[in-house]
Every structure is written in structure tokens, then in C-alpha cells.
């Protein structure tokens, strides 16, 4: 088990990590998700031994790793940039870690071949990195990281330099491999779909803090904070008013507030509602008018302008929605509970919904 205990990291006046507490269970894949500069890569580099915390400690299976150098940690890492050694062919790249461990040559090359088979690159064993595509290079990097049979696998945005098709394919491959080998993995990404589709648990980070750590479904459906709600997926900010019983009145509906703490009854707020949690019906006397219709293949995204001037995004199955721009529609929120914006944030009727 990996534990981050009150990890802080200060770079001059910039606080990259402001007391990170995190536990990763044996064989689990945890994805740290957040915008640039939120501290997710710093956390990963501290676990890998490439950076040192200003305060706090990291333990692996109860052993304090804080002062242990990177080369003594037994952690395989795959980097965002292509990191294969240009002077070695693919086989020797994979066998590098075993060579450092003075493994017998025949043994280490056999192990390298085994791992190349695992990532489907057996026939590329004699090629050099510059003769491989980006996706192939990252596959080799994964094989190389796994060759040393590490206790922990660290993935630092390994798919961000690849094109969409290869990214989607590798996402599945990495997850399958991780589950098959049961290797504890920390995965850092700013791509929410990557985090949601691959991780056992997703940690949403903001300004050096962990805003929420939960299963992908919980993070998506029941975000703990307004930031987590808005960062993961597209989000509408709809004006509402806090009720007496920890509820909120939005678009004429009464919904339960998930983060009611700090909100005064009767105060104005913004309820955060996902586009797919709103349904529309054609209604000449409805509350708004469709101003834009974007066909996305499986779904349709509609922009509805309410009579009060508020814009609302609605996403529905492309088979079900036949309305076009100019149609008057009525709206209905499907979910029973919502997150509202933090107290003190004034509602802005002109605000454009956040789209991720």
C-alpha cells in the first residue's frame, strides 16, 4: 500500500502541494486528475523519488520512502515525453533495467522478449526508437517499466502525445495489462475521459489539494465540490435559491443539495447540472428556445436560451431529439440531487455553461 501523508511541496513562493493525503491499495489504479499546475505531476515525481517534499512523507508497504533515491525505489515509470534510449534497440531498451541489476544476458534478453510479446511488439525487437511510431514507443516504454517487476507503476500522462485513435487503444491495453499483472499504479492525467475509463479511483486535484477521491462513477455523479463537478464533464450553472430543508429551487424543480454546508436558506446560488441530466420537450409555451444544435454522432448537444437570458446545454441521444434551432422547448432536470457553487460566488445569468 502507498500512503502520502501530509505531503507539501513549495517552490519558492509557489505551493505545488498543500498537504496531500492519499492511500493507494495493493493492485489498485488511482488516477490523479486536474488542470495544469494543480500538483498532480509533483505528487507522482515525489512518489518516484525525482522530487522531495518540503513536509510530509511517503510510505510504501509501511516503509518510509521519503529519503530513498529514485534508483532504489523499484518503481517503473512511463513518461509523457518519449523516453526510450535512442542508442539502444527496442530489446536492449526493455532489458536495460535488468542489465543494471546485473542479470545474466540470456535471461534478461529472454525476459525482454517476453514483455515485448506482452505489448505486441515482438517483431520490432531489433528496431531503434526512431524507427517506431509514438504509440509503439510508449508500448516499449511500458514493457521497459514492467521488466524490472516494479512494486509500483507510475504513469505520467503517457498518452498525451499520441493521436486520438492510438490513445483510445492504448488506454484499454494499459488497463488490461495493469489488471492482469495486479500492479499498483498511479496515473497522472489532465484528460478526464482517460481518468474515468481507466482508474479504480479518481483523485480530482486543484491548487495542490485533493478535492475528491472516489470511484469514477461517484466523482461524475456525486462530485464533492463545485470544482470537481465542473472539471469532470460538461456542466450547466443554473440560477437557484437555497430552500429551508437543504434543497434548492432550480427551473421550478426542488432538488437536494449535495454540498449544503455554508449555504444560508433563502440565499441565491448556482446549481451545477450536467447537460445529459436535463431533458427537453417540444412545447410552444416552454421556458426557452433552442438556439444551436450540434450533432455529435451518438448524441446531440443543444443550446437552449431561457427567457431570463440564461443559456443551458442539453445533451440527448441523437435518435430521440428531433428539434432544431428556433424550436421552443420546456426543460426538466432528471437528477434528484445537485452540487451548488460555493457560497459567496454570485450567480451570473449571462454565464456560458462550462464545457469540458
Amino acid at each position, binding site marked *: 500500500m502507498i500512503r502520502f501523508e501530509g505531503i507539501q511541496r513549495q517552490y519558492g513562493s509557489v505551493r505545488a502541494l498543500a498537504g496531500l493525503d492519499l492511500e493507494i491499495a495493493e493492485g489498485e489504479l488511482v488516477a490523479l486528475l486536474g488542470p495544469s499546475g494543480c500538483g498532480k505531476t509533483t505528487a507522482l515525481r515525489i512518489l*518516484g*523519488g*525525482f522530487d522531495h517534499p518540503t513536509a510530509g512523507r511517503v510510505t510504501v508497504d509501511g516503509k518510509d520512502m521519503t529519503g530513498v*533515491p*529514485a*534508483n*532504489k*525505489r*523499484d*518503481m*517503473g*515509470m512511463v*513518461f509523457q*515525453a*518519449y*523516453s*526510450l*534510449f*535512442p*542508442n539502444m534497440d527496442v530489446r536492449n531498451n526493455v532489458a*536495460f*533495467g535488468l542489465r*543494471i*541489476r546485473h542479470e545474466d544476458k540470456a535471461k534478461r534478453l529472454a525476459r525482454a522478449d517476453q514483455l515485448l510479446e506482452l505489448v505486441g511488439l515482438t517483431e520490432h525487437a531489433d*528496431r*531503434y526508437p*526512431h*524507427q*517506431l*511510431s*509514438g504509440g509503439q514507443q510508449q508500448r516499449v*516504454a511500458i514493457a*521497459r*517499466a514492467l521488466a*524490472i517487476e516494479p512494486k509500483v507503476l*507510475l504513469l505520467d500522462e503517457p498518452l498525451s502525445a499520441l493521436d486520438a485513435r492510438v490513445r483510445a487503444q492504448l488506454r484499454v491495453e494499459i488497463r488490461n495489462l495493469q489488471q492482469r499483472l495486479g500492479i499498483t499504479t498511479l496515473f497522472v492525467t489532465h484528460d478526464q475521459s482517460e481518468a474515468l475509463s481507466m482508474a479504480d479511483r479518481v483523485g480530482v486535484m486543484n491548487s495542490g489539494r485533493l478535492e475528491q477521491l472516489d470511484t469514477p462513477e461517484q466523482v461524475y455523479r456525486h462530485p464533492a465540490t463545485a470544482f470537481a463537478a465542473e472539471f469532470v464533464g460538461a456542466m450547466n450553472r443554473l440560477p437557484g435559491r437555497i430552500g429551508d430543508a437543504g434543497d434548492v429551487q432550480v427551473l421550478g424543480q426542488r432538488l437536494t443539495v449535495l454540498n449544503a454546508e455554508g449555504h444560508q436558506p433563502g440565499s441565491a446560488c448556482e446549481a451545477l447540472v450536467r447537460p445529459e441530466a436535463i431533458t427537453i420537450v417540444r412545447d410552444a409555451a416552454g421556458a426557452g428556445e433552442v438556439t444551436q444544435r450540434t450533432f455529435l454522432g451518438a448524441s446531440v448537444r443543444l443550446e437552449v436560451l431561457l427567457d431570463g437570458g440564461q443559456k443551458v446545454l442539453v445533451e440527448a441521444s441523437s435518435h430521440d431529439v428531433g428539434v432544431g434551432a428556433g424550436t421552443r422547448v420546456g426543460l426538466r432536470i432528471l437528477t434528484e440531487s445537485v452540487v451548488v457553487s460555493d457560497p459567496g460566488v454570485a450567480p451570473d445569468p449571462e454565464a456560458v455553461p462550462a464545457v469540458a
Partner: protein
Amino acid sequence: MSAIGGVGPDLVGGGSLLQEIEEAGTPGPPVTRRRRRPRAWRLVILVIAGLFYAIPFLAAVKYSLIQNDGSFGFANYSAIISNGDVRNALYTSLEISAISAFVVIALMLPTVVLVRLRLPKLTLMLEGVTILPLVVPPIVIAAGLAHLQGSAPEWLVKLWFNHPLTGLTPTYVVLAMPFTYRAIDTGVRAIDLRTLVDASRSLGASWAATLVRVILPNVETAVLGAVFLTIAICMGEVVLSSIMLYNGVLPVEMIQIGAQSPGISVAISILGLVFVFLLLFSLSFIAGRRRGSNSVRVI
């Protein structure tokens, strides 16, 4: 094209003018003319430059082949081989070159890596420090060393100054620093140093193993360039070695022989030139081989 802007006959012969304008508009023949001109100029420049270098070289070769009796032959060259002093001086200079090159690379490569990875703020200072040997004239360095030689305790003189190998090598390491620093720095800038180092460290490699097995092979061309520059300095430096009275090194030996037998001196110069040429040729061959291997990029 001059006909277009011209007056007189062209204006009268309107047909030919039109034809010329049309020709100027077509991409075919004028492009060919434009391409031919630079090629011709290139050839002329190449020939002039070739003659500029070849004539003195060939004259020197011819001079070195003139024997004492006026006939042509290899007497001067065979005299070099049979001259024990020249042979010893050559060995000493080669030894100094090899040790200086090894020491300067062993010092500069880790320094450049350390500064780039951990102490980037020191880059400017390092550039300033490494350029000092170029700014301070060799005569000043020689004067300083001569003073030290004269005032140092006997044991230090015996240890340091008694042999050209110990006396000159540290100084040549300093003299080679500006060139080696810049060559290695350029090589290191060309690779993704941080990622390669992090990858190597995460796979269990120590700093030394990372330097030798990962960084060095990937800056091989730059390091070879630095080595050859160091060798060139060591084989040609004459001010320091002659002021410090080290007669047993090749450049000083050449001057001494030149005073007695100019033919042998010129023959040594030519051999030195060929030696440096072979070094540079092997460097460009290695660099070319690397570029060639990169060009077979699949995707």
C-alpha cells in the same frame, strides 16, 4: 528581362517584346537560368578556396620531398621515423593529448549535466568561467606557471614540473575547457536530458551508470568533437611548452628541428595536418552515420 524596361528597338518590335513578357511569365526556362548561376558561382568559389588551401599544401609537400642532394624522395620522412627525439616527442604529445582529453571530458560532461539538471542558474557563470582560458593570453598563464615553477618547494617541482606529462597536462585541460564545454553543452541540449536521466534512474541506474550508459552514447558525436579539439590543442600548443622549457613535446621539437633541417620540420607539419584531417574525417563519418540512421525513420 532588361528588354522589358528598355526603349527604342523593343518598342518598335512590339511582337518580340510581348514574346519576352510571356516568356518571363512562364516558369520553365528562367527558373533553370536562376538555378544555373548559383551553381556556377559555387564552383568558382570552390575552385578558389581549393587553390587557396591546396597550393601552400602542395608546395609544402613538394618542399618536404626535396632531399639534401636536391633530388626528390622520402628522406625527410624516414628521418622523422629514425629520429629518436622526434619519436619520443610524438609519444609524449600523444600521451598528453589522451590524458588531457580524458580528464577534460570526465570533468566537463558531469558538470554540464549537473548544471542543466540541478543548477540552471549557474549556466551563465559556467559560460563565463569556461571562456577565461581564451580571454587570458597563454603568455600570461605561462608567466604565472613559470613563477610558480621558480618559487614552489622542491617536492612540488619534482612532482609537477619535472616531466612535460605532469607539467603540461593540467594546463592543457584548462586550455581545452572553452571548446569542450561548448561542444558538450551543444550535444546535451540536443537530447531530452531530464527524461532520459529520469527514465534511467527509475530503472535502477546510479548517476555514474546513467552518465556512462545513457548520456555518453547519446552525445557521442559532441564528445568526439571535444576530444579532437583537445588533441588538436595539445598537438599544436607551443607558447606554454617552450616558455616552460619542455623540449620533449612535438611542437617544440618541430621548432628546434626546423632551425636545423627545414625539410624535416615541414614533413612533420604535413604529417600533423594529415593526422588532424583524419581525425576530423572520422568525426564527420561518425556524425554522418548517425544522421543516416535517423533518416530511416519509419513514421
